[in-house]
């Protein structure tokens, strides 16, 4: 399964009103941490009511936890834009 789809699947638990997962690896080709096969740099834009009571740190931590350490270890960079 492409990493983009894995990320989408794991973030479904937040029941997002809006979810965009963008593979930005091509923009980082050749840079340290980029992998020849791509799938290294991602941007997530997510809006979910579940984030409303959370601080910035808590929102990011909730997403890190949902993705899990195994998936995070395979991703070199993850930019998060989180809204409630």
């Amino acid at each position, binding site marked *: 399964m492409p990493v983009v789809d894995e990320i989408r699947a794991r973030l479904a638990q937040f029941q997002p009103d809006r979810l965009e997962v963008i593979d930005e690896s091509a923009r980082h080709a050749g840079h340290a941490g980029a992998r020849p096969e791509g799938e290294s740099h991602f941007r997530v834009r997510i809006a979910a009511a579940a984030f409303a009571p959370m601080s910035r740190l808590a929102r990011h931590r909730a997403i890190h936890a949902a993705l899990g350490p195994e998936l*995070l270890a395979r991703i070199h960079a993850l930019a998060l834009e989180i809204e409630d």
Partner: protein
Amino acid sequence: MTAIDQIKQDIASNDVVLYMKGTKEMPQCGFSSRVAGVLNFMGVSYKDVNVLADADIRQGIKDFSDWPTIPQLYVKGEFVGGCDIVTEMTLSGELDQLFDAKGVAYNKDAADQIRAANA
């Protein structure tokens, strides 16, 4: 000294610490570069810790903060966040408020210039 002890000592003895890839003068990663660039432009005095120079610190700071990525910003011993959070806080003015509350000196005009350029 263990890596965790080193981290505790660094964040206790420096008001602002940035764990980053590379140095404040020569960042080695775009995300580290962005945070260092903000602090440099705002004239904040901070200690830069190059995690690429020490594998134990690189893993240790991730464990200590329970945060999987670099850069990581600490102010007065408190974890603030990584690149996304620092960027958002810079643009919203929350970073200014944090520095005000914690008594960290910075150039307010420079912070306003960053916001004006990104409005």
